[in-house]
């Protein structure tokens, strides 16, 4: 009996291995890489690999549909590859360092510093030259301009635009007798005031979704830049965000947590928890991208939420707001045939495709001819975001610097802030540790690139 079992087991294993298990290749991705290397990048390339870094049911369905259309038109087959957002950066690094990047990949702007240095993305200037006019001012004057300033070339084609706003619990405000008007300006002080008023711990109502973990410094940087004209460094490359004003801003921002206007747990919150806890009814405000509007629509009723523009700086009255294309398309350095890859990018960016995509993912259109689609009108869910784009006071602040800061973003930035929140460190020490590290990297960069111009905050109008 037992012997029989063993024999059956062995046979089954062999069969399983022979038939299915080992050596079976996934989809057509391998064919594509093999094929493209065989034909060494001539016109015969018949398949492409596409990597999505924020896979979801919606996105996968959209892309698979659009790839089918692309194949009908061009005969080129596209494989949809994806990696969960959490692991995306790691995965691309592994792919990149072993020369296995897919032809086209969706890229987050924060990664570009690393990717351009490593040659994982190729410049798209020559493709873009003739079609610039089709894209909105925001793309031309903000996105591409800043890429050119930072990296010397245009490297990405935006998938759509993302603008930040303050999501607010409309019903909580009404209960508390607070009147908010999205078309009226407001300042950071008004915002802090609102956060305090919405907090009612006995009801389990907290003022805001405080971001304590990875990315904790991002919104805080923008707030501090309200005191430095939107810049991180001055024209000599000296760091600006360590001033007295900025330290006070640092303290004021973190007081939201220290005063208990955010759940104690939020010291560990990243993007996901912030959104989850806002839509779940624990927190009253949330500073986040327009993309989140789709999540809110899905999980909340219309009378529960609204969007305010980002608060204005109390110093110069500007709205400092990061504007980027969250998962813009780039062509990888490993693509055997960038020309064919470009065909795909161009197809994806066609007005009718791009507007369909934007509506699906909650992004702002990038093409002039579909800019005024009614979804993005005054009564649509994106009114506040579009309105900010048209605000003469809008300015896009600079980033942490033109160098690779991924490791700091993964660690030091939020850890120093956390140490202060936990009372293990003074606010000044935390901020100084961060700014000293940034300054030393900036100095390194300046030594290596003496001719580099230092980026400054960009204005749309």
């Amino acid at each position, binding site marked *: 009996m037992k012997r029989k079992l063993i024999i059956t087991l062995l046979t089954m294993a062999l069969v399983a291995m022979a038939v299915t298990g080992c050596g079976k290749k996934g989809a057509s991705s391998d064919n594509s890489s093999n094929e493209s290397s065989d034909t060494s990048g001539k016109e015969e390339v018949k398949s492409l690999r596409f990597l999505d870094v924020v896979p979801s049911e919606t996105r996968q369905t959209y892309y698979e549909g659009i790839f089918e259309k692309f194949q009908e038109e061009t005969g080129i087959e596209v494989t949809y590859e994806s990696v969960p957002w959490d692991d995306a*950066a*790691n995965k691309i*690094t*592994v792919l*990149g*360092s072993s020369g296995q990047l897919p032809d086209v990949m969706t890229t987050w702007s924060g990664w570009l510093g*690393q990717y351009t*240095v*490593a*040659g994982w993305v190729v410049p798209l200037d020559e493709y873009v030259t003739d079609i610039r006019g089709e894209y909105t001012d925001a793309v031309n004057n903000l996105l591409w301009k800043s890429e050119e300033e930072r990296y010397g070339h245009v490297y990405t084609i935006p998938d759509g635009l993302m603008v930040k706003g303050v999501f607010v619990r409309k019903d909580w405000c009404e209960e508390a007798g607070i009147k908010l008007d999205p078309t009226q300006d407001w300042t950071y002080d008004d915002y802090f005031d609102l956060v305090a008023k919405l907090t009612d711990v006995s009801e*389990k109502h907290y003022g805001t979704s405080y971001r*304590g*973990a*990875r990315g904790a410094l991002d919104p805080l940087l923008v707030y501090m830049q309200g005191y430095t004209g939107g810049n991180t460094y001055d024209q000599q490359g000296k760091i600006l965000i360590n001033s007295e004003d900025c330290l006070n801003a640092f303290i004021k921002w973190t007081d939201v947590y220290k005063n208990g206007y955010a*759940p*104690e*747990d*939020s*010291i*560990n919150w*990243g993007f996901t928890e912030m959104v989850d*806890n806002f839509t*779940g009814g*624990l927190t009253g405000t949330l500073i986040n991208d327009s993309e989140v509007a789709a999540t809110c629509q899905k999980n909340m009723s219309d009378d529960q939420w609204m969007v305010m523009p980002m608060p204005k700086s109390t110093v110069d009255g500007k709205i400092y707001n990061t504007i980027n294309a969250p998962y813009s398309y780039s062509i990888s350095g490993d693509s055997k045939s960038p020309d064919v890859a470009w065909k795909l990018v161009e197809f994806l960016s066609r007005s009718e495709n791009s507007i369909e995509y934007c509506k699906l993912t909650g992004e702002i259109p990038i093409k002039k001819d579909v800019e005024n689609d009614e979804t993005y009108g005054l009564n649509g869910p994106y009114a506040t975001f579009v309105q900010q784009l048209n605000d003469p006071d809008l300015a896009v602040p600079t980033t942490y610097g033109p160098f*690779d800061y*991924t*490791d700091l973003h*993964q*660690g030091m930035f*939020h*850890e*120093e802030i*956390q*140490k202060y*929140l*936990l009372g*293990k460190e003074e606010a000044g020490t935390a901020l100084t540790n961060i700014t000293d590290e940034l300054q030393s990297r900036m100095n390194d960069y300046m030594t290596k690139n003496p001719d580099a111009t230092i980026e400054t905050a960009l204005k749309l109008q």
Partner: protein
Amino acid sequence: MKKKWDKRKPGHHAEKSKMEPYFYILPVVLLLILTFGYPLLKSIIMAFQNYKLSNINDVYFNNFANFKKMFGDSDFLLLLKNSLIYVVISVTGQFVLGLILALTLKQKFRGRGLYQAIVFLPWAFSTFVVGLLFRWSFNGEYGVVNDLLIRAGIVDKGIAWLGTPGLSLVIIILAMIWLGIPFFGIMILAALQSIPEEVYEAADMDGCGLINKFFNITLPFIKPTVIITILLRTIWIFNSFDLVVIVTGGGPANYSQTLPSFMYTKAFSGYDFGLAGALGLMLMVILSIYAMVFLKISNYDKAGDF
């Protein structure tokens, strides 16, 4: 003579060739050398190189710069402390609870088969799922643990388990213990069952007490199993980082970060493989020293040949 049988196994099979044992061992050893050898060498070399994945064209030897960076990290001592606390408490907890479980399971009772199947279930869990389950249950606002504590009147305000230094590491340790009890339980139970009944009967005749029997019969009998299980579990747990990454991500402010999770989140996400190699090398050195000392102290050579 030429044929060397294991001395403990009586009997010879003289005509077999000297090469025979290698026929059995070699496939596995070769496979492992091929697959582990290269990575091992590679990471040792990387430890002494400036090896950033983000800049793969700029690889050069930088002597001990990676080690300087590693030891120079202001949180290094904290990480080392966390790692030790994590591994010592997890292994001790698993061992003690696993031992108690095995001792109670040794005697037959009705429904033992089913009971055994249930209490050994955590072993079948994936770390990922357990990590999420604990993270969810210990959530400060939605967590069932806080709710239970408040209902029981033990606390009047929810505790931020995962947001408090010290506590967040405790949750990771709890999850690790929960996952690991069955492994110890099974190994020890098996060892217990292989103790011949006659030994206990003889002890009964001599009027030995329960505690006496435990220390003089049970423990010596299961010692080899316990030693090898503790050794392996320590190595595995020391190197494991998935629970840390899933439950807290090392937070807040590195207070639940261990050396391997630091290696994963910082060196890997920062793409600094030189640093990762240096950390890896140090982990291996620590583990080798531990293994040697542990085997020496426990006199394992006498119990079996390792």
